[in-house]
C-alpha cells in the first residue's frame, strides 16, 4: 500500500526529503527518497569510495544534469571527476571506453538512451566484446546510464526502450531499476562491477519517492545484478515487468485484488542476466504468466521470457498460454490521448489477467 500511495503522489514530498537528506548526518529508520536522489546518492558514494570513478556526459557538471540527477556533484568533486562533454556521443563514449581499458571506472551519462544509438558501436564492439576477444586480457569496467523508454510528450525519437537491444548482447550486463532502492543498490553494484553495464533509468520514475529502509541507506548497500525481486506475492497469476511499468502492475494488482484475484508481481531489476529461476518458481505456483513492458513487442523482453518458459521446467505448469503485454508496435505518437493508448495502462493489465484466467 505504501508503494501505491507513493506512486500516486505527484512527488511534492520529494523536495522536503531532499532537504532533510542534506542537513542531517544521521537518518531516521526509514525515509522517503526519490529515484533521482537515490541515483545521485549512489553516484556520490561511489565517487567518494573509489578515485578511479568519474562521470562524463552532456550537462552533467555545471547544468547539474539535464534531469538534475547529478546536482551538487560537480561542486563537490570538480572538473576532473565530473566532465561536461560536447554533444558528440560516439566520440565521448569511445573516450570513456578507452579510459576504462586503461584502468579508470567511467560512468557515462546519456541524456536519453535514444542518443546512445550513435554510440552503440563502442558499447558493443569496443566494450562488450573486448574481454572475450582478448582471451581474458582486457577487461572494460564501465557503466552507461541514463533515462530509457517512455517519457511524457517527448514523441517518437525520444521515447524508445532499449532493453531488448542491449539485452541481446553477450558481454553486457543490462539493469533496469524501478524503485529508489533498486536504483541505488543496483547502480552501486554496476559501478563496482568490473564489466560493461548498461543502466536503464526512466524519466517518469525520477520524481517518484519511495521508502528507503535503514539498510539501504548504508554506503555499502548493494543489490546483486541478476536477481529479480518479488514486489507483491500472489497465487493466481505472475506478472513480470521492469522499470516504470512495475508501477502499473502494482496498481493493476490492487484493482484485481478487489475481485479476489491475487497477482504475484515480479520486478525483474536486471534484464541481462535475467533471473529466470524467480520467474519459473513463481509460474510453478501460479500457473499463469503475463509479461508486461513498455517496449515494442517484436523481439522484446517479453518474447525472451516466453521463449525461455517454453524451453524450461515452467512450461508444464502453465494452465494457459503465457502472453505479453507490451507497447503498441508503432513509433511513439505525440498527442496525449494517442500516447496513453500506446503504453500498457492499468486497464490493459487487468484485462489481460482476466483473459488469461478466463474470468
Amino acid at each position, binding site marked *: 500500500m505504501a508503494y501505491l500511495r507513493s506512486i500516486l503522489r505527484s512527488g511534492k514530498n520529494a523536495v522536503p526529503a531532499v532537504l532533510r537528506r542534506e542537513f542531517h548526518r544521521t537518518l531516521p529508520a526509514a525515509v522517503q527518497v526519490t529515484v533521482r536522489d537515490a541515483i545521485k546518492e549512489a553516484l556520490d558514494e561511489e565517487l567518494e569510495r573509489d578515485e578511479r570513478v568519474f562521470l562524463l556526459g552532456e550537462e552533467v557538471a555545471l547544468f547539474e544534469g539535464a534531469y538534475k540527477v547529478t546536482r551538487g556533484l560537480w561542486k563537490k568533486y570538480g572538473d576532473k571527476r565530473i566532465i561536461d562533454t560536447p554533444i558528440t556521443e560516439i566520440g565521448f563514449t569511445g573516450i570513456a571506453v578507452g579510459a576504462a581499458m586503461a584502468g579508470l571506472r567511467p560512468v557515462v551519462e546519456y541524456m536519453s538512451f535514444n542518443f546512445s544509438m550513435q554510440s552503440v558501436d563502442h558499447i558493443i564492439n569496443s566494450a562488450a566484446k573486448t*574481454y*572475450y576477444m582478448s582471451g581474458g586480457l582486457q577487461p572494460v569496467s564501465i557503466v552507461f546510464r541514463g533515462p530509457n523508454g517512455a517519457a511524457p510528450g517527448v514523441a517518437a525519437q525520444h521515447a524508445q526502450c532499449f532493453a531488448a537491444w542491449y539485452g541481446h548482447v553477450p558481454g553486457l550486463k543490462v539493469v533496469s531499476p524501478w524503485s529508489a532502492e533498486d536504483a541505488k543498490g543496483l547502480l552501486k553494484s554496476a559501478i563496482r562491477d568490473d564489466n560493461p553495464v548498461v543502466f536503464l533509468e526512466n524519466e517518469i520514475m525520477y520524481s517518484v519517492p519511495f521508502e528507503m529502509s535503514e539498510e539501504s541507506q548504508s554506503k555499502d548497500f548493494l543489490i546483486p545484478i541478476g536477481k529479480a525481486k518479488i514486489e507483491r506475492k500472489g497465487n493466481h497469476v505472475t506478472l513480470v515487468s521492469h522499470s516504470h511499468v512495475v508501477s502499473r502492475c502494482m496498481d493493476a494488482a490492487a484493482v484485481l485484488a478487489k475481485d479476489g484475484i491475487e497477482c504475484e508481481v515480479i520486478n525483474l531489476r536486471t534484464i541481462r542476466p535475467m533471473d529466470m529461476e524467480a520467474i519459473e518458481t513463481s509460474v510453478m505456483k501460479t500457473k499463469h504468466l503475463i509479461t508486461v513492458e513498455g517496449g515494442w513487442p517484436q523481439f522484446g523482453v517479453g518474447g525472451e521470457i516466453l521463449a525461455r518458459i517454453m524451453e524450461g521446467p515452467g512450461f508444464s505448469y502453465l494452465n494457459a498460454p503465457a502472453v505479453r503485454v507490451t507497447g503498441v508496435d508503432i513509433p511513439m505518437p505525440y498527442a496525449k490521448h494517442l500516447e496513453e493508448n500506446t503504453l500498457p495502462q492499468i486497464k490493459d493489465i487487468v484485462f489481460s489477467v482476466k483473459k488469461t484466467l478466463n474470468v
Partner: protein
Amino acid sequence: MAGETSFPEPQLAGARLVVSARTYADFTPQASFDIKNCDVHKLEEGPPLQAVLTREEGLQYYRTMQTIRRMELKADQLYKQKIIRGFCHLYDGQEACAVGIEAGIKRSDHLITAYRAHGYTYTRGGTVREIMAELTGRRGGIAKGKGGSMHMYTKHFYGGNGIVGAQVPLGAGVALACKYLGKNELCVCLYGDGAANQGQIFETYNMASLWKLPCIFICENNQYGMGTSVERAAASTDYYKRGDFIPGLRVDGMDVLCVREATKFAAEHCKSGKGPILMELLTYRYHGHSMSDPGVSYRTREEIQEVRSKSDPITLLKDRMLSNNMVSVEELKEIDVEVRKEIEDAAQFATTDPEPPLEELCNHIFYNEPPMKVRGISPWIKLKSVS
C-alpha cells in the same frame, strides 16, 4: 587496476645482438644522418633535420623490421594454404612506422591501432610465436585463439581494432586516463588514410584538444583506403592539417629515423602539457588491403615495384649502415638467418599447437565473475563460462 596484472611482461623486440667475427672496434659506433624535412602545420618548427643512429640501435631496428617483414610474408603463405582464415591485413612495407614510433616513445607509454596490427603487436612486446598462433587460432595464441588477426593485445597496447576509426576515441580515452592518473605517459592513436574521414575522429580531435589530452594522433597514410586512393576519398589529402586547431607534421614514413625523430618531437609536445599533436606518416603497403585483395585493381604493379626498389624501409636502413661502416654484410645476413629461423619455428608452433578446447568456448565473457551458465545452441545444451 583491472587488467594490469593479466598481461605477461613484454619482450624487447630485436634486442638480441649478433656477435660478429669482426670486433666492434672495426665498426663505426654511431653516425649522424640527414633526414627529410617535415611539413608542419601550426608549429613554429619541426623535428631536427639530422638523426644520430648508434650501431646497436641500427641492428635493433633492422632486426625488428626484418622480423615483421618475414612474419607478414609467412602469414601470407599460411593464408594461401588456408591455415589462416578470415581477415588478414598485412603490414609489409610499413615497418619503419611501427619500429620508428616505438623508438620514439617509452615502453610505459600506450598505443592503439586499427586492424593492420601484427607489426605493432610485435613492437609492443608480443612474440612472433604467440602472434602467429593467434592468426592460426590456436590455444597458444596471444588471445588464446579467441580474437584472431584483428584482436591482439599486450600490456599498454590496446589492439588490434576491427571497426574503422573506433580506435581513435578509445586511444584518446587511454590518454585521458594517463592524465587523470598523473602518470606522465601518453597514448599513440593510429589510424589510416581511409579512417581519417571518420566523424568520430573529428569529435576526438575536439575533445582531446579541449581537455589537452596527451595523445599523438598518427595517420598512417599508405595512399589507399582498401581500394580507394586518397584523392578519391578525401576532399583534403593533407591529413596532417585535418586536425585544424591541432598542430601537425607530415613525415617520411619509409625512413625509420625520420619516424623516430618525429615521434620524439611529438612526444615532447604532448608531455609538456601542450595537448595533442598529429603526425601523418607517408608510407606504403606492398600487399593489398587484406589477403582477399590482390592489390592491383586500383594501382599498378609498376607503382608497387617502384616503391620496393626506391623506398623500401629495410633497404634504406641497411644501405645507410653499410655505407657508413656501421655493420657488415655478413652480420646482416646472420640476422636474416636468425629471423628466418625464428619465423619458421613460430610457424611450426602455430600450425601444430592445438585449437582452444571446446570446454573453454564460453570463457572470458565477464571479468572477475563467479562461473555462470551460458545458453548453448539448443535448450538441452548447457554450457559454462568461467572468468
